[in-house]
Every structure is written in C-alpha cells, then in structure tokens.
C-alpha cells in the first residue's frame, strides 16, 4: 500500500463528515427481555434461559429498568422522549444471534433529536444526537484457529450466550460536519463526554476495555468547499464504518487514519467502498470487513411479541428529576467555588484527581492546598509506583488532616512529606505519625533563641548585612537555624527572632 497523505494534505483537499454510534451496555441486574443475570465474567452459557437462547416458543418481556435507563440517557442528551414506541426485529443470520434476529428499535426510537456539547480545548462543539434506542446484545463468538480470529477460516467457533440479551442503548449522532482538522479530537471528546455522562447517570459500568462502551466510527470525505463559497447543500462522500473502537485514544486515531485512507483512495481517482472496517489497536490501521451491499437488508418490522413502550409524561418528568448535575456543569461550578484557574482545573482533571480534590475540600481542606497535595506530592508518588493517584492508598480525609496540621503550625510542608511517607507505610493517622516520628515543629523561644544565637555567631558576615538593613539576607540565617533544628522549627518565629536580635 502506498504511503498515506499527511493529515495536513488531507485537510487541504477534503472536509470530513463523521457519524458516531456508541453502544452502551446497561448495568441492569437482569437482561433486557428475560430474568437472567448480567454479571460479567461468569462461566460461559450459565446465565441463559429459553428466552435469551431463542428456544422455540419462548417470549420476551421488556425490562422496565432498561427502559428507565434509556429515558434517563435520552434526557441527559437533551432528547425528546417518545410518547409511544415499539421494538422491531432486525433480521439477519449469524450464529451468535440465538433467534437470527436482534430485538432492537427501528423507526420509533425511545429518544430522539438531542445534542451533547463537548469541550475541545476550551471551545464548545455541539454534537447533534439523532436518536438513542434500546436493543439487546448478541452472544459472544470466539473463533478458534485460522489467521484472523474471524469466522472465515476458523477451525471452529465457541459461542457464549451469557451476553445475549444484555440491554444496550445505541446512541447515534447526526453527521458531524465542520470539525475540519479537529475531527479526530471532536470524536474523542464526544465519546469521552458521553462516557462521563453515562458514569454520572450510573447506568453502566462504562468500561471501554470490557466492551461496556463500544464506539463505531462512520467517516466520509467530501471535496473541500472553495473558500468564500456559500454553504449550500452538503454532499457527503461514501462512508466507511469502523467497528468496535474500544478506547478514547483509538477513536481519535481511527478517525485520523480513516481520513488519510479515504484521501489516498480519492486522490488516486478511486472510489471509497461502503463497508465495515475493523480497527487494529496494535498497528493503528483499519482493514476491510464485509462489504455493505444491497444484500444487507434487515427486513425490520415491529416486534409482535412485545407491547409498545408508552412512558407517561409524569414518569418522564420524574426521571428528569433524577438526572445528576452534568459532569462538566459541576466542574465549572466547583472551579468557580474553588477559585482555580483554567490551567489548574485542567491539570487537576487530567491527573485524575478531580474527585479526590473535591472530597479533600469537603473534608475541610483549603482548595489550593488540596490541589497542591494531590497534584505534587501524591501525584509524584503515584507516578513512582505506577498506580493511579486514586489507588495510591491515601484518602482525602487523611490529606485534609495533614493540611490541618500544617495550618495549625504543628508541622510545615516539608514535614508533611514525612507524614505522607508514614501514611503509605501504614503507620497510623497523621497525628499518630507526627507523634511517633517526633515531627512536631519547635516554637519554644528558649530552644529557638539558642539556635538563632548560634547561627549569628557562626555567620558574622550575614549578621552584619542584616544589621545594615539587608533584610533579604535573613533567609540564609533562617536556613541555618532550620538545619540545626532538623527542619522542625517554626520558620516564621525564627525569622522574627533573627530580626529582633539584629535590629
């Protein structure tokens, strides 16, 4: 394959259009249409029943918790909630589909016409949502043998139906236009924001690595509109659909790669195929899956075994009342409350310390102090041991307690580091560690006065400078005193004593 054009070259000639389809696996206790449990990681084919195995005669019954989650997601995405909608059968043959149709929704989704505002480097980009609909997951096929891990060429396949029937919400965007060079970032920011929203709603484990959030990336390129031309009708190019992109970083990379691949095809005068593509995390490329042709006719029709879903307006409003504060709204509110700069805020979120800082403040710490401890001292230690700062083993309450000791003058910042050592070594509460390690600052004038006298005697030149009014030189004497006192001196009081004695 010839070298792909650079990203800048792509942008010089084409405008990208994206569509993102995100599948969210709900964390309901039971499956969408039967009572089987949904726990992840059980022995294969142990969480199944006649309904989710598609045995002859078995019937589905809608899980009300699944509908509730779908409505809450829809509301959080600023969608309209259908007053009446139905499930539909999506018919196609595949061994991991127990009934050879998937119970989904077609032209009557539970939620539609919404949007999600996402932050891309400080700018807000509005992603319009076309629909969010309910459906069931398929079984999980493992193809054994063969080179590709796909069904073609495999020696045999194993199917685990534990996953069959687990509720999914599929969230589909409208075509995302005008993102230009930021298309990859917008895609990533959208999936990240959506994931955060799902977490805040508490409706899914939201683990991309376990597949509880899966993104499909549709991408097409259109020739760049000439500069100054009026925005007329948007003509979209042929799209590819890259399946199961399972990390935020991969979403960004897949968009970038597909933009370059499409451009290379178009530059060579070729035609982009409408097809499903597979993303390869390791090599960072997509490869062709099956071609989507006219043969892909799902023959949708309303599911006759289920009654329509008709959520009352009262229920919808009740559910609206359960929506949590949106994560980014909450962040903006707390940033203002705490007085953090944009940079401080971004660093805090970026370090994964936002919740920790918030809890530390809730435990009584000053905001800046809380930020300081988590982003410097504790982040460094987490980095050294290779764990997330949240998993370091220091609690927000402990950090707040350390800060209280600092503010009360019992210890200073430098001594606080030793307290953290003690905490990580499991030596007890911060107070116990200060006592056991003898870290308490000396503010007794007798001991301090003797140390100051000693420092003055040992540094006559500096003492003279201070006597001559060069107060800035006091730092050197204070440093000497602190050294003498092994850091356990009240630096403020030492300064006062130095200046008094040399006045």
């Amino acid at each position, binding site marked *: 394959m010839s070298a792909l054009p650079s990203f800048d070259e792509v942008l010089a000639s084409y405008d990208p259009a994206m569509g993102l389809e995100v599948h969210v696996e709900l964390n309901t206790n039971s499956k969408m249409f039967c009572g089987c449990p949904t726990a992840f990681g059980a022995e294969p084919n142990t969480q199944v029943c006649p309904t989710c195995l598609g045995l*002859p*005669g078995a019937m589905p019954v809608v899980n009300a918790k699944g509908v509730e989650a779908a409505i809450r997601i829809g509301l959080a995405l600023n969608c309209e909630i259908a007053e009446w909608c139905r499930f539909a059968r999506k018919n196609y043959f595949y061994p991991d589909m127990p009934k050879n149709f998937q119970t989904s929704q077609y032209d009557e989704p539970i939620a539609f016409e919404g949007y999600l505002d996402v932050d891309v480097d400080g700018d807000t980009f509005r992603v319009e949502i076309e629909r969010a609909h309910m459906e069931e997951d398929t079984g999980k096929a493992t193809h054994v043998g063969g080179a590709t891990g796909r069904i073609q060429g495999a020696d045999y396949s194993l199917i685990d139906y534990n996953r069959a029937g687990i509720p999914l919400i599929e969230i589909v965007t409208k075509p995302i236009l005008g993102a230009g060079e930021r298309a990859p970032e917008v895609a990533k920011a959208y999936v990240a924001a959506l994931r955060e929203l799902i977490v805040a709603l508490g409706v899914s484990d939201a683990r991309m690595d376990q597949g509880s959030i899966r993104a499909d990336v549709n991408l097409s390129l259109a020739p760049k509109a000439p500069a100054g031309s009026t925005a007329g009708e948007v003509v979209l190019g042929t799209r590819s659909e890259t399946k199961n992109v399972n990390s935020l970083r991969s979403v960004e990379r897949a968009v970038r790669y597909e933009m370059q691949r499409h451009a290379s095809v178009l530059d060579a005068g070729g035609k982009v195929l409408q097809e499903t593509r597979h993303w390869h995390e390791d090599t960072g490329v997509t490869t062709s899956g099956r071609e989507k042709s006219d043969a892909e006719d799902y023959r949708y029709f309303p599911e006759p075994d289920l009654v329509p879903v008709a959520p009352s307006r009262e229920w919808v409003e009740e559910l609206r009342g359960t929506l949590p504060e949106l994560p980014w709204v909450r962040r903006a509110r707390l940033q203002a409350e705490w007085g953090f700069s944009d940079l401080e805020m971004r660093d805090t979120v970026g370090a994964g310390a936002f919740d920790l800082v918030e809890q530390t403040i809730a435990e009584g710490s000053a905001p800046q102090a809380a930020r300081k401890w988590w982003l410097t001292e504790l982040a460094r230690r987490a980095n050294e041991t290779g764990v997330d700062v949240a998993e370091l083993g220091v609690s927000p309450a402990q950090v707040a307690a350390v800060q209280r000791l600092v503010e009360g003058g019992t210890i200073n910042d430098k001594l606080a580091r030793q307290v953290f050592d003690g905490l990580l070594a499991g030596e007890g509460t911060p107070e116990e560690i200060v006592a056991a390690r003898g870290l308490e600052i000396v503010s007794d004038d007798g001991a301090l006065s003797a140390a100051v006298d000693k420092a003055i005697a040992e540094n006559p030149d500096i003492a003279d400078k201070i006597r001559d009014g060069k107060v800035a030189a006091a730092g050197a004497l204070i440093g000497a005193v602190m050294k003498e006192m092994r850091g356990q001196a009240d630096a403020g009081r030492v300064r006062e004593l130095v200046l008094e004695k040399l006045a």
Partner: protein
Amino acid sequence: MSTQSAWLTKSAAELAAALAAGEVTSVELTQAHLDRIAAVDGNAEAGVHAFLHVDTEGALAEAAASDARRAAGEPLSELDGVPVAVKDVLTTTGLPTTCGSKILEGWVPPYDATVVRKLKAAGLPILGKTNMDEFAMGSSTEHSAYGPTRNPWALDRIPGGSGGGSAAAVAAYEAPLALGTDTGGSIRQPGAVTGTVGVKPTYGALSRYGLVAMANSLDQVGPVTRTVLDAALLHELVGGHDPLDSTSIDAPVPALAAAAREGALGDLSGLKVGVIQELAGEGYQPGVLARFNEAVELLVGAGAEVVEVSCPSFVHALATYYLVMPCEASSNLAKFDAMRYGLRVLPEGVDAPSAEEVMRASRDAGFGDEVKRRIILGTYALSSGYYDAYYGQAQKVRTLISRDFEAAFASVDVLVSPTAPTTAFKLGEKLDDPLAMYLNDLATIPANLAGVPGMSLPAGLADEDGLPVGFQILAPATEDARLYRVGGALEALLEKKWGGPLLAQNPTLASLESAATEGAAR
C-alpha cells in the same frame, strides 16, 4: 379395559363429576383413552393418526397422582384427573415437540408452555401430542412431515388444519379434551369439519408463552372439545394473564362455564345476532348454507333478533392474512438454523462446511414445501422497498377489518357465519392448489386479524355428503362469554332436534378400530 369403554363418549364435565363422585378413577379413564388411541390411531399410513407422541407412562403416573389427591379430598381443580391431548406446537417438558416438522424431530423442550403448566398444575394427565400441519401452516394437516391425520367421519378426508390432530382425537373419542392453536382458523375449521367444538379466544386471553409461533400477532391457544361447556371449562382453566407474555390481557378470566350453562337453558331473548353478508353466499357449499340457515332460525326461535350486517373489508382479509402471517413466520422460523437444537444436516460434497452452509443444508432438508413457500413470501414482502406496499398496507387493511367489527358490534351482540365454506374435502384434493386450500379460512381469518374471539360448533350434516358443518359465532374482544352463552343455547337446541350429540351420528365410528388394525397389518 375395553376400548369401547362407556366413559369414552362422556363429556369432560361428566367425567369430572364421575371422578368427584368416586364412580371412576383417573387411572381407569386415562387407560381407557390410551387403549382407544392404541386401537384407532394407527400410524401415518392408516387409522386416524391424530397423535405424534403418546405419553403412556407420564399420563398414567399423573392419573395415579390424581386419584391419590381425590382420595385425600384434595383435587387440584374441577378437571383434576380428566385426560387431555395437546397440539404439538406447545412446548412440553420431557415430551417431544416437533410442530409437525422434521427440523424439530426429537427435540424435547426444557420448559412447559404456560398453558401446559396450567394443565399440569390442575392435575390433568397429558395423553400426548397431536398432529398438525408443519408449523401450523395448512388447513388439512396434510403438511405434517409425519403424515396426515384422517377425519374420523371419513378416513379418506381431511380433518381440517392446522390442528387436525386435536380435533380428530376429540372426534374419535381418543381424548375428551384437547388444546389447539388458531392463527387463521386452525382450531375452528378442524372443529367444523370433524363435528366438534373449537374456540379461538380473544387475542391475549391465554398466554402464548411456549407456543412455537407461526404469526405472533395472530396466534392464540384455545380449547378443542365435544361440548360447549367443556370448552368453557378448559378455557377457564388455562386462561388468564401471564407475566411471561406481555401481550396477554391483565384481567380476570370471565365466568365462561356459567355463561355456557346459562345459554343451555335456551333463552336468547334480547340478544341481537348479525349475519355477515360477506361470509355466506357465493363459494359456499349448499349443504353448508342450509345447515347454517336452519341454525340461525333456531336462534330466532330462542328469542334472538337476527339482522344482516355488512363487513365490506372482509373481502380483503385473506390477502391481508397472507402478507402478515408469512412476514412474521419468516422471521420466527429463522431460529431453526441447526446451530443449537433440532435437525443438523451437513451439506454433501463439502469438506469442512461453514456455519452458513450447514444452516442452508439443514433448513433445506428440514422444512417442507408449504413452510418454504411462506418463508419466501414473507422474506420478499419485508424486503426494503416492498415493506410499505405489502406489510405496511396489510396492517392498514387490518385496521379497516377491526373497524368493520367495531361498527357491526355497535348494533349487534354477536356475529355469525358458516365456519368453513365446505365440508371436509378429500385427502390430496387441494394439495397442489395452495390458493384453493387458503380459501378454507376465508370466514375464520377476520377474527384473527382483529383479535376478536370466535367459536365453531356443529350445525349438522350437509345433505350432499353427510359430513359435518360448522357454525361460527364471533363476539367483541374480551366478550368471550357471549360465545359460550350463544353456543350453549344453540348446542342445546340442535341436540334436542338431533336427539343427542352430532358425533353419535358418525357412521364411521364403529369401523375406526378395524381400519387402524387392517392398516397396521398391511
């Protein structure tokens, strides 16, 4: 025990009374019916062939348990100990369920259909599973992959379909009660041509959980019996809401047996009966129309007011049905892919067949022609670009048919028509002409499309061939009790005229046993 046991010809209500009075045991009754089956049912080549599987051991064990309960004074229900037959489209734990298809040969479901569970919970021994057109697709039971059922009135004639097995079993005294299913007439039309009673309840009145679906929006389980009261008793027993079927009606089962008993008193004054113009006249056998008209006169004699009503959309019912049903069926039958259960056929001449090749070979070998015909029809009609013109349009006509019913029921309490346009035709007569076969369901289909309840009961014998004629009663949705009241009255009036049940006039009954034996000896 003799296969001519006097108990065989009793109604289920009479058997229940005898059991309660200690005049007979459930084991005796069950054994008598098993003996009768052994004597007359024969096999695919000869005999009635109403049963695909007979559960001698299971039925007798349940009968013994029932006798123990009776002895202890703790029967589970009024019908505890009365044996019953079940159409092979309803799942039964431990008993094969084939739906009359090769593709499910040998499949034993791990769960009971809700109606079967209710039979068991009420203590009714299950004699076995009855024959049917493959996946309930047909009007003659000739499309069973296991050979046809024969009409006990004339063994060279069809017993109707798809539930010919259940109707023939009841008509031949092989079972006092049976369950059937009715998607376009599969309970009522077999009832009509075998001289028995069949009821398609209101859509949702009985659970469909465990009914292997042909067309989910049309299918309904119902009773197949020899008397209207028996149908009411069985309907009450298995009816009601089921949390496993969200389309089932969440309301108490109406008092149906009481309605049947009230009707049997013969007073229908105040009742308004509508004769459906579109379902009587051209295309109907003269003998069928004659018996129908006489029955209507009997209703008038009992005090009913009879008027003619028009349901103009009914002329489109058959076309509508043959779009809705295949569409749903094509999707329902997709699950039979040889991957998890049922027949698996490896394609010939393929070294390491793929899943797709195995699916194709198995479906090709496992499904019969009528099933394939409907899968193809449905797949085509649902295809993109055709959906609106076919399935979408059919749903609109369905609405029109419902409106016709609503308009009619605004002025009358029940509607009546002949159940089927003809009496039982000869085996093989219409096998090569699907359209002629489909016409059999002309009068029964509208009720399925609209979800309203319908009953067929014997109206007498046609002059030209001496075969049973069915009389159909239709009521508004959830007003199933009206069927039993009117049916109970008509049955009483007719039996008074005949001097007993119509089945007693069956000239072939006496020779069923020898027919089966001779067939087996051949």
